[in-house]
């Protein structure tokens, strides 16, 4: 038999969400972790992508270059725009046919909408927002199981969840929790076209229109630099200063939950357990105390520069460099020095 490690290749309008590539990287690693078991048996192991949409053949090829050995494609007009029912019916039918061992889905709005429905229909377990995934030995289990680790209770606790007796073992993972795997332009793989009995009549929903919301919808997950503000800003006006610094650094503005709840800045800027997970090269935390709920969303940043008046603020526990002081003195000084640096470099 083949032990299949599946990744849902999320796409919208012909664009794959990068979380799918991140998950293909994870699936390859998970598959390699059972290689020792596979070697002892007649089993095989395969990393496979599941692609749903309309006219998505080029994306299947891209998935192969990111590590899928095989892509099952559901390609039909009924799948042009995401709708819960056609998509979940499609995935359920493929999973019933091929019996994957592990099924990973990005914890995006689309992925969360889909994963809960699919897991319920397959009567299996689903662990949301995993931060670590591993195939590991578990007592009384004949084979390694997916150890799915995630924060719970607002990030105060880290729990490892098992799905012992049901398949597939399903998990969702937020964008940017894992790194993008290297693209192999010469990778070869197979594309398998599948069909399922889903029609426009049974789709259960009609998308009437899309409302572009570009102004409000910042994509902080994939920014290289984030300058984030917290309660210590003292008010919404402080974000103007952060924006100036963010622009000087070529980055975007983030925020703690307190600022979003207070209405200082829209939700799309929120970093943390109930906001976005980010892993920029540089994360500047200004006036953010660093509650656990915030930390779980940004602790994977390469460099964390924290500015806070309170030297006991928990953000200093994870900061690469911490500055204890008044952010309204520190940030203007930072702006001056960065501008001077840039000028010096351009000479």
């Amino acid at each position, binding site marked *: 038999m083949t032990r299949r490690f599946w990744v849902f290749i999320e796409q*919208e309008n012909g664009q794959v*969400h990068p979380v799918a590539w991140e998950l293909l990287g994870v699936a390859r690693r998970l598959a390699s972790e059972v290689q020792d078991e596979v070697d002892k048996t007649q089993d095989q192991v395969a990393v496979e992508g599941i692609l749903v949409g309309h006219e998505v053949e080029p994306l299947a090829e891209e998935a192969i270059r990111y590590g899928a050995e095989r892509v099952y494609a559901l390609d039909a007009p009924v799948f042009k725009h*995401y709708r*819960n*029912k056609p998509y*979940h019916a499609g995935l359920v039918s493929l999973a019933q046919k091929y019996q994957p061992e592990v099924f990973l889905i990005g914890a995006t*709005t*689309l992925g969360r*909408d889909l994963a*809960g*429905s699919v*897991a*319920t229909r397959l*009567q299996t*377990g689903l662990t*949301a*927002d995993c931060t670590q995934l591993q195939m590991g030995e578990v007592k009384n289990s004949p084979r390694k199981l997916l*150890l799915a680790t995630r*924060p*719970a*209770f*607002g990030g*105060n606790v880290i*729990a*490892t*969840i098992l*799905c012992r*007796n049901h398949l597939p073992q399903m998990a969702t993972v937020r964008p940017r929790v894992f790194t993008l795997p290297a693209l192999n332009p010469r990778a070869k793989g197979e594309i398998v076209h599948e069909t399922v009995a889903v029609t426009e009549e049974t789709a*259960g*929903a*009609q998308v*009437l*229109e899309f*409302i572009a919301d*570009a102004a409000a*919808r910042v994509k902080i997950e994939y920014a290289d*630099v984030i300058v984030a503000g917290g309660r210590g800003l003292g008010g919404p006006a402080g974000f103007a200063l952060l924006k100036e610094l963010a622009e000087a650094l*070529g*980055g975007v503005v983030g925020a703690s939950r307190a600022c979003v709840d207070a209405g200082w800045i829209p939700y799309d800027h929120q970093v943390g*357990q*109930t906001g976005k997970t980010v892993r920029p*090269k540089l994360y500047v935390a200004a006036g953010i105390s660093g*509650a656990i709920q915030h930390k779980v969303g940004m602790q994977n940043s*390469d*460099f*964390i520069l924290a500015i806070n008046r309170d030297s006991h603020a928990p953000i*200093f526990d*994870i900061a*690469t*460099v*911490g500055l*204890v*002081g*008044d952010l309204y*003195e*520190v940030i203007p*000084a*930072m702006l001056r*020095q*960065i501008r001077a640096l840039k000028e010096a470099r351009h000479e």
Partner: protein
Amino acid sequence: MRFVNGRYILFHALVGIKQVPDTANIRIDPETGNLIRQGVPTILNPYDAHAVAAAVEWKRKLGGKVTVISMGPPSTVTSIRECIELGADRGVLISARQFSGADTLATSYVLAETVKAIHQQDPLDLIFFGKQAIDGDTAQVGPGVSARLDFPLVTYAIKIRELNLEQRYVVTERKTEHRNEVIKTPLPTALTCEKEIAEIPFAALPDLIYSLRYEPEVWTAESPVRFDAGQLGLKGSPTTVFKVGTPEKHAPGEVIQTFEVGVESAVKTALDKVMASGVFSSILGETR
């Protein structure tokens, strides 16, 4: 209330709610890594409160009623009362020892069977959930219930634009990753709600008074619905907790006191370190 085809059409909405520990106030025993439950206040899950507000808003527009259901320990009564205070009419608490330890699959089973029973007594138009509960943050129960009932699912709903009880459809605006989407689904539809779906109203005095003494119906594992024991609680849960721990501690970095060394010098040291780490060169647009 409207008279159509010889009968009155009334709106009936159901809201699935959860009582949760206030995660902002949780403390962990640093020795054992266990949750200190004692003294942690419980609250009505904030997203659920907005879902109740939305259901009540449409009830007030169209006439009808709002039923609230929750699976949880007896103390959940206080959260159900809070929903009554917000304008819900009927509360059902599904509570028994057999339900405890349920993961999202077992929870969605109990809620779906309960919705089915209520739908048979008194047909439903919409079922609401919060987009997620703040303790588990899984966002799985709403989609799970909808899948079990085969009701269309609209997640991350921010606005109900149109609700037509005669022609049996609802038009909802929902958030997606890149934009908002307007979606039309037949009734009954299941919605999971963002906070934008409705403002929490100030309680009307009669609702407030009614809520103070309100006792929800308590449903058990046997009555009025005879649940399948194999699908309840721990037994009905495919996932189990393998281990629990506290988040990894990072090695703390360097902390500089600006009032000791001066702001300019502190900032310079910090920026030098950013540069030395290599992340800054790409930020400044320099090619290496």
